[in-house]
């Protein structure tokens, strides 16, 4: 076993995703470069990765969020950008974790709609979110029809 010397110790990396009709990842990157004070910014097809001291990263993200609050989403990342253990340039194929982002980004416009409507929502109204209990089970007669159609 060889010695392991970590890179970027004491930093945090955060993903910034933008899924907006009014803003592209390129627009977001230009604004981020304008205000980046010592943080490392990597442009991606979905937004940015920002690496640096936690307070600096949070300050940049706080300003970026203001640009389009309901269409910009942020999450932590464990690895720094370009890490050979995760970067697809070294591995081939999509980066591990990409499929989860791809799936959630396909639904994120629904979350944006929810954030947009939150301010105007009646605070007394009890939320009725999609939950495992609210799922409609397959009707037995429909199942029988499917089986018969396959047998035929």
């Amino acid at each position, binding site marked *: *076993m*060889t*010695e*392991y*010397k*970590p890179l*970027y*110790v*004491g*930093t*945090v*990396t955060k*993903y910034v*995703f933008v899924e907006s009709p009014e803003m592209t990842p390129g627009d977001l990157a230009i604004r981020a470069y304008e205000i980046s004070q010592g943080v490392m910014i990597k442009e991606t097809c979905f937004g940015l990765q920002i690496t640096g001291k936690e307070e600096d990263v949070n300050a940049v993200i706080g300003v970026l969020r203001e640009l389009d609050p309901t269409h910009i*989403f*942020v*999450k*932590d*990342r*464990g*690895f720094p950008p370009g*890490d050979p*253990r*995760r970067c697809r340039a070294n591995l081939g194929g999509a980066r591990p*974790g990409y*499929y*989860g*982002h791809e*799936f*959630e*980004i396909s*639904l*994120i*416009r*629904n*979350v*944006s*709609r*929810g*954030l947009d*409507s*939150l301010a105007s*929502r009646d605070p007394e*109204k009890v*939320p*009725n*979110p*999609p*939950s*495992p*209990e*609210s*799922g409609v089970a397959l009707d037995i007669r429909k199942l029988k029809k499917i089986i018969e159609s396959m047998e035929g």
Partner: protein
Amino acid sequence: MAKVFIYPATSLILSDLVARFGHTPLSAAIQIRERIQTPGLDSPPLQITPEEPKKGLKYAAVEVPSGVRGRMSLYGPMIEEAEAAIIINDADYAFGCMGCARTNELIKFLVRSSDIPVLDLNYPKNEEEGEEFVAAIHAFLKRLEESR
């Protein structure tokens, strides 16, 4: 500011909403970051060392595969630390090898056995569900804040 465990622990939507509403999401990235920023012996790709399955013994028996115990050494401490949890039940992309699948079952079991409030959800498939989804998370976190 409460610590909220999220499942899937890599979820962008949950991580963002919990942080947006003023709480701390407990996600896999924090545990991974801690390991890959700690010097030691090289143990690629995630710096999971032979010590991790030993730590996982706290959450799973010795005959449980080391893959499950190693993963539990990441998630177990977060579940212990959590003051609440939000679970999305139809996250098919969280499916992986048998180690991932069994760990996912164990995570849900531990969350439900611990005495913390849990919000059970599915992903919003349309805009109406999106409105209810966000409102439910907002109300859950607000109640959490008021009960502290």
